[in-house]
């Protein structure tokens, strides 16, 4: 048993569980991605709670809309929605380019995503500015600003993350250890997108 030559390291002979062990330990990227997904799942419960609250209020509140408010204008938000949702495809393209090591292609589509995200924020700001009710206008006003604001904050964080990833793409050797940052940012972006689709349905379509 003990006579095996120590130079004949088992590692060279067969992929042993030891290597699995080492991979385990050094797969920091995989851990990070796993952790990030867990975090997003948890984060989604905040939104779910807000949605649940919204549904309860909407179905039980007697004077739902604040006095003088007819309902929400849907056209501009719909355009905004189309842009945000398409940006999910654009960011996917960017990722594809990165995987095929076309760094400029990546940067182009990545920047395009950022532009679309920023446009969404701009559109949201314009909408907020034009509304005749505020955060304290009853439960409806509160819920509207809470939901769109909390989501907007996520879009804003997403754009910031994208900016960081864009800058990092200029660091030589940035991708030597994989693309965890880009993958995570992109996942986050899809998440923000899906949340918006539900939100849009709840607030704008279900009036």
């Amino acid at each position, binding site marked *: 048993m003990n006579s095996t030559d*120590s130079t004949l390291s088992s590692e060279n002979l067969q992929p042993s569980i030891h290597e699995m062990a080492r991979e385990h*330990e050094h797969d920091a990227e995989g851990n990070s991605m796993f952790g990030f997904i*867990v975090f997003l799942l948890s984060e989604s419960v905040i939104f779910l709670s807000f949605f649940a609250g919204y549904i*309860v209020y909407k179905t039980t*509140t007697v004077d739902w809309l604040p006095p003088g408010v007819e309902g929400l204008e849907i056209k501009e938000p719909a355009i905004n929605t189309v842009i945000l949702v398409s940006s999910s495809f654009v960011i996917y393209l960017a990722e594809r380019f990165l995987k095929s090591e076309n760094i400029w292609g990546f940067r182009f589509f990545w920047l395009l995503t950022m532009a679309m995200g920023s446009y969404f924020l701009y559109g949201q700001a314009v909408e907020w500015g034009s509304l005749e009710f505020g955060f304290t206008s*009853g439960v409806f006003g509160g819920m509207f600003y*809470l939901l769109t604001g909390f989501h907007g904050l996520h879009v804003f964080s997403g754009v910031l993350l994208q900016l960081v990833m864009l800058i990092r793409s200029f660091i030589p050797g940035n991708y030597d250890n994989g693309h965890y940052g880009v993958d995570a940012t992109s996942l986050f972006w899809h998440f923000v997108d899906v949340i918006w689709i539900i939100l849009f349905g709840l607030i704008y379509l279900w009036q």
Partner: protein
Amino acid sequence: MTSTQTETTKIPEKHHHHPPTTWKTFFSFSTDHKVIGIQYTVTAFIFFLIGGIFAMIIRGELITPEADLVDRTVYNAMFTMHGTVMLFMWTFPVLAGLANYLVPLMIGARDMAFPRLNAVAFWMVPIFGIILMASFFVPGGPAQAGWWSYPPVSTQNPTGILFNGQFLWLLAVALSGISSILGAVNIVTTIIRMRAPGMGFFRMPAYVWTVLSAQIIQLFGLPALTAGAVMLLFDLTVGTSFFDPAKGGDPVLYQHFFWFYSHPAVYVIILPVFGIFSEIFPVYARKPLFGYKVVAVSSLIITGLSGIVWVHHMFASGTPGWMRMLFMFSTMLISVPTGIKVFAWVATIWGGKLRLDTPMLFALGGLIMFVFAGITGIMLASVPVDIHVNNTYFVVGHFHYVIYGATVMGIYAAIYHWFPKMTGRMYYEGLGKLHFWLTFIGANLNFFPMHPLGLQGMPRRVASYDPEFAFWNVIASIGGFILGMSTLPFLLNMVSSWADGKKAPDNPWRAIGLEWLVPSPPPVENFEKQLPIVMAEPYGYGKSEDLVANASDLN
């Protein structure tokens, strides 16, 4: 074959050099899970003493029927801060600390998955602790709306200023939530992805199972509390009307948000304690954990059920009948997976070779008090009975039996059991036993009288009460003071043993588990040379099998 490989496997090189652990390490931004674990535990214990002093003031006030020791506002601040500190600053952090210390060792990992995130999560604890304590110094004093902070009481804000106690309370609780979520992400990732080779799920110690189950609860529950807290914060500060009935809001909705988390939170607290029981009984009874697999899986079942019972805190809140009945049933169902555990522990002890060292005493005492509390819990779950005793001392009695009787006693058991591992020193058995008896007697004297009080109709959260309730309150207060005293031998024991105790061997209890295969205290990287290769289920007492293939090569 395996041992051949073991002999020759190349050792993954150490990541970096570590300075030796000294007392200064514990005040630094260390990323070693063991240092963080102890940091958490000690910080939490300081808050336990603070919360305990609040409790002493409560018991002092209640020793007479009149409100004569402190002002009513102070009394209200006392129970609010007592509940908040005990839950958010003592139980959660201390359990996070134990999990931090033990989980990587038990699953054969060198550290947590995200060491720096770990340190960040820990350092938030003193920060929000200080924020909460600072609320004693703002005009109006600390929050006085109970640990539930139900609106509209919590949003009344008689001070009229923004930085009031309730505001700081919400801030502290929100930070505590963030810290717990970061911790949960870390622990879940560690358990799922960092297990040593051969450590399949059904080879994990039951404690690891319970920690995993508990942390999953944090992940799905805390965000709901956060959502409610954010809405409450806006109501309090900028004047939204989410929960303000005067402006069309719905105060009962807050209760749903609150209990959707705060009920499962009690299982975040008790599950790791179940894990501690499952670790300790086999060691001191010298028998394998009875029905290990079922015990392990029942933790996840509790996690699942814990998410669908919250309305049992709101039976008297104006809940429709169908909801009352549904949640009554789901609540009672929890006794099934819990019963599986209780019976398994009894079967583990049964016919064993019992050794009543301090950890075992605390675990046994905790188990007995838990069963009592579980039974009063089932009574509370029964809607008609709850309608009578809801918001009376019966509830206070129920939960102190679980939370002090089972949880704090379980945590003491864990601290004594792993103390030699953590510090490399033995504690003094005599002081430990004294601590146990003072605790056990004090806790029962303190919390048993609360049941007759509640049945007689004494409401909770009152600074004064009708003289008919005086008898049991005097006994409870005396028990409370004994409990207060019981912490003294413990503190003395811990401080003197750590400084000057007998050197502990690697495995003083002849326990089976990865953590007992490394030196006491373990080196920085836990398994300096090789990761353990696990070959067997845990708890192989009475069987002659090896837990790992490479026991002699770990360090």
